[in-house]
């Protein structure tokens, strides 16, 4: 059984390395994204080999499910960038390879020498499954748990604000609250009339009460 695990580990490692190499070497960028998904899948298998089932599920659910979708959408958002005349390897790839290899080895070689590798020979039962994580979320880490929700909320709201800015006209500067309210009051009756650049001097200094439509509309 141990031999099977070792073989599986070798196959998984080769899959990860091969997929990672294909990501950076393949010409079609969508194919590169698909190879990246293969790489994620290999890492999920690695987690399963380490008996971290929950991490494996998270890896499949989040990385293969969500991040892959995000990457593919991001690729489709870009303009055509795979020019057939453009070489896949850029000019100074040899020196880049050397520098990155040295940096990688500087981290990895001391780790290989200092790490206690025999720990895997006597496998312990997993001490942090989903049940323990659930207990931790509900007791010790309740506040970080709720802050995570706020963080996710902020991510989505920020993305919407950035994306929806293209629909509206781009603002020259951030409006004050009074201007914002005045602008909204002006826009309600006739939506399309909107000054190209809101006046900076006249309207920012006076604390306009909300129903004052003529203050902000002077720029046109």
């Amino acid at each position, binding site marked *: 059984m141990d031999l099977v695990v070792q073989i599986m580990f070798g196959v998984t490692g080769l899959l990860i390395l091969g997929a990672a190499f294909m990501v950076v070497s393949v010409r079609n960028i969508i194919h590169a994204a698909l190879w990246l998904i293969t790489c994620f899948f290999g890492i999920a298998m690695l987690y399963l080999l380490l008996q971290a089932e929950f991490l494996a599920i998270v890896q499949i659910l*989040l990385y293969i499910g969500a991040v892959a979708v995000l990457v593919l959408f991001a690729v489709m958002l870009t303009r055509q960038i795979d020019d057939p005349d453009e070489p896949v390897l850029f000019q100074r790839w040899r020196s880049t390879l050397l520098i990155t290899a040295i940096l990688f080895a500087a981290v990895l070689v001391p780790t290989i020498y200092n790490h206690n590798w025999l720990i895997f020979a006597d496998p312990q039962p997993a001490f942090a499954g989903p*049940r323990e994580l*659930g207990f931790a979320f509900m007791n010790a880490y309740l506040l970080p748990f709720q802050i995570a929700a*706020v963080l996710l909320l902020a991510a*989505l709201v920020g993305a919407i604000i950035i994306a929806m800015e*293209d629909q509206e006209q781009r603002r020259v500067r951030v409006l004050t609250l009074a201007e914002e309210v005045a602008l909204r009051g002006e826009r309600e009756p006739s939506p399309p009339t909107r000054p190209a650049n809101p006046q900076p001097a006249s309207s920012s200094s006076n604390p306009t009460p909300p129903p004052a439509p003529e203050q902000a509309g002077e720029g046109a």
Partner: protein
Amino acid sequence: MYDNYVFLGLFLIAAISFPVLPLIVARLIRPKRPTPIKQSTYECGLEVIGDFHVQFKIQYYLYALAFVIFDIEVVFLYPWAVAYPELGMPALFAMLIFLAILAFSLVYDWRKGALEWI
């Protein structure tokens, strides 16, 4: 300890061979007589217009991002659901607050019109 994964491996092999095997069999037994009209790209029976690289609207990206957010929510729900029988009522309220914050992001999405397919 890895005994459970034998079934998983069998399922994996079955799932991979299910689409791959017919393709191999079809490749072996089908006649191969390509013509230019057969090789051309099929696009709903119409002539292909322009390049296949079309820039997406950024609104579509918002769908993907909303999906990622609620996918992460599922990941948080899963350990909570496993631990819930032993935790009881306080955990329910904590999770309701968590869900309410994330539901607010969905409401914001909806009100901003980010869920409209353009």
